[in-house]
């Protein structure tokens, strides 16, 4: 047994004893179950597995630290009202905000941050990492790191545009349907049903096979596929508002539809709609990444995370992590947005789940 292993178990057991002593029941259960898991993995996977757990725990602690600091930072710079809300954010949400912030910086300042151009061939294919190239080269000898940074701009940008379009389309029809009711409501509901009864990826593939894979086509198709989801949610949220007496009062006053939507309904629907925008972004982002991965999304030489995974996939069979990095970048952003959305949904639902 190495000192590492002894230290490892000593730390865990010591921590669980402390937790037990201070009656932190849940913390104790967590640490102690980790200890038990470590026994098993230690026997099966040897020291390597224990080192892996240590690294993972270290990374988690690092992420927690960064999130905590970032939340405090936001609380200090934000106005009073926002700061009060931020104080309720769990660390996961703070982590999400931090990642989104980082991605935004990377995307906006991509040409400044990236050491090389997006399509610049600077070395041989699959060259390993060196002091010039942080992550090595891709299948054509382009700098992986630079392409990753540009990818933040291209992939995320495209997803944002498509989401916004889907959102405007869906939310407007949803609000109108809820306000007007009658045949318009019925018709839009049916249309949404039909579009949603085809799996989204399948629908996208069908449309792409017909219209080709230009950026414009992708944005339109993705927006079309996802707007029924926004429509349904907006319709439901607005539907709950429309039955309120204050809407009836406004209608009886003789107000027009536009006033009803703008002044009466929209201010009461923002919280769920903002959360929905986050969720919608995740779906759109994953769909576009999936299409790119299939070679049917953003076309080369534009740097894009989905296609980067596909282009470098062969490296996996040599035990290389490189192709996983753009995939991880996708996952990280989606997770982060989901964390933030999860918090917002919890806030807007109040204490329903207690």
């Amino acid at each position, binding site marked *: 047994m190495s000192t590492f292993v002894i230290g490892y178990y000593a730390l865990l057991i010591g921590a669980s004893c402390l937790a037990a002593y201070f009656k932190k029941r849940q913390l104790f259960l967590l640490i102690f179950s980790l200890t038990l898991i470590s026994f098993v993995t230690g026997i099966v996977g040897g020291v390597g597995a224990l080192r892996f757990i240590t690294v993972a725990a270290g990374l988690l602690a690092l992420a927690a630290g960064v999130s905590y600091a970032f939340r405090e930072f936001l609380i200090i710079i934000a106005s009073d009202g926002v700061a009060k809300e931020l104080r309720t954010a769990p660390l996961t949400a703070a982590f999400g905000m931090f990642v989104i912030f980082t991605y935004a910086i990377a995307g906006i300042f991509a040409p400044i941050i990236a050491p090389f151009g997006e399509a610049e061939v600077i070395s041989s294919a699959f060259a390993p990492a060196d002091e010039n190239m942080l992550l090595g080269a891709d299948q054509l000898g382009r700098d992986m790191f630079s392409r990753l940074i540009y990818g933040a701009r291209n992939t995320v940008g495209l997803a944002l545009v498509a989401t916004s379009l889907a959102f405007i389309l869906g939310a407007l029809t949803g609000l109108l349907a809820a306000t007007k009711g009658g045949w318009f409501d019925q018709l839009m509901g049916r249309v949404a049903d039909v579009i949603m009864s085809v799996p989204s990826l399948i629908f996208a593939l069908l449309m792409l096979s017909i219209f080709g894979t230009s950026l414009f086509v992708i944005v339109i198709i993705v927006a079309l596929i996802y707007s029924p989801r926004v429509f349904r949610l907006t319709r439901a949220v607005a539907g709950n508002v429309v039955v309120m007496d204050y809407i009836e009062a406004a*209608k*009886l006053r*003789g107000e027009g539809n536009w006033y009803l939507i703008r002044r009466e309904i929209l201010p009461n629907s923002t919280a769920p709609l903002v959360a929905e925008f986050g969720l919608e972004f995740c779906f759109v982002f994953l769909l576009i990444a999936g299409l790119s991965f299939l070679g049917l999304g953003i076309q080369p030489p534009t740097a894009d995370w989905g296609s980067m995974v596909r282009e470098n996939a062969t490296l996996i069979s040599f035990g290389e992590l490189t192709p996983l990095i753009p995939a991880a970048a996708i996952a990280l952003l989606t997770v982060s947005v989901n964390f933030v959305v999860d918090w917002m949904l919890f806030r807007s639902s109040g204490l329903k789940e207690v």
Partner: protein
Amino acid sequence: MVPKKDVLLEVKDLRIEGYSDEQWIEIVHGVDLTLHKGEVLGLIGESGAGKSTIGLAAMGFARDGCRISGGSIEFDGMELTTTPEGDLRALRGSRIAYVAQSAAASFNPAHRIIDQHTEAPIQYRIQKRVEAQEDAMELYHRLRLPNPDEIGFRYPHQVSGGQLQRAMTAMAMACRPDLIIFDEPTTALDVTTQIEVLAAIRDIVDQFNTAAIYITHDLAVVAQMADTIKVLLKGEEVEEAPTEQMLDAPSEDYTKSLWAVRSFKRPQKERPTEAGSIPIVSVKNVDAAYGKIKVLDDVSFDIYPGMTVAVVGESGSGKSTTARCITGLLPPTKGEIQFNGESLPPRYQDRTKDQLRQAQMIYQMADTALNPKIKISEIIGRPAQFYRGVRGAELKNRVDELLDLIELDPAKFYNRYPPELSGGQKQRVGIARALAADPSFIICDEVTSALDQLVAEGILKLLDKLQEDFNLAYMFITHDLATVRSIADEVVVMQRGKVVEQGAKDEMFTPPHHPYTDLLLSSVPEMDPNWLTTLLEERGTDSIGEAANV
């Protein structure tokens, strides 16, 4: 006094906390309570008094998001706050039972009524299934449920609300508990149904000499049921006394004010007699339907300027539907609505701005009647701006003037949002919004029924004053006859979409009546503790059974 050994439940300095906005806040502040065997204690208080929370605590139970934070609850020698959950569970259903407010929601839709009834006795091995079922039928008999041998084999949604409430009382009785907690068992019911349930509950509690805690906000109801009354306010006890004494001579100011509420009464006004005077609103032979279901059948009545017409009836009688026809939300299938002698277009979309302005509405739930995201100044100012084009400083003056009228300080309320206001203040804002349009006719839809009594009194007085000042005509939709007595000039009684009787108020409250009006009037609980007994004697016990079968 009753000797100490008969004490069944003794609660001392009970404190309960609720979780909101990320912290625990005390909602019950040290309440004491003593209950003897066979005694019925009435817990009375306005919303937020902590009645239900205390009732549940008597079972050692706290809802999710609540916790018992201090004090002691001793049930028959057992300290419930320290008893382990397993032992507490053994008490529930067997020795302490609970009857919830909404029977329809509290019966599991997936099981037959009798199977839910027999669950506790079988679990506690008091009876075998067959015995328990026979016992259930016996209890159904005693509670005068129709078809007692068969009704238990139905599913909850197949049985009416009043019957379900009695079935739930039977279920609570299944193990012959020492104590039953009744949590507003008749609040969701109509007055005529309420009588049957009250009578049934009182009988069965008497027969088995069961102790009970009866929770309600209705003084007249608790007067019929309880031996002792305890008044609560915001989680604290105000006073406790035997029922007779509490009704005759309450000692605390708060209690006196509760008792005094029903005293407001203004003189009845008569219809204008001079020739040529026309009603401001005239409902003429109106039929209406939701889809294929006819809900209004040949409804006609008139409302004259400056007068209040109360439309009374139970839920489903069509009184709110009539209001929807008048406002144009539900176009009548037959007949018409006249305004100042002119026929109104049936749909509100087809009415002119001026026609819409003339008739305004005040809603029952002030919470849903005011947009929570719009400032008070805009809520009140919008009608003035919309109808009259008032803007800028002039608009601000108008809003200030309206706030003064409803007795809210303009400096304080101008920039606030509805969620920051209390229920009564919100209702006042609702009134101001209606006034802002300079109407001549206002529909008041149960405007006081969601409010605590003192606040409701204030609203009624305000409405009365405004009527004098602006010569407003009111259509007052209500199921509460006390309100009718205090403010109405004329009364329209509705039942199942038809007008059964109408006339001047004083006539309506003096016999002879239409049989339904009679039933309705006599069913409204009175403060007299002997009211229920007297009424049942008058009607004869059979009438309850009959009414139950309706």
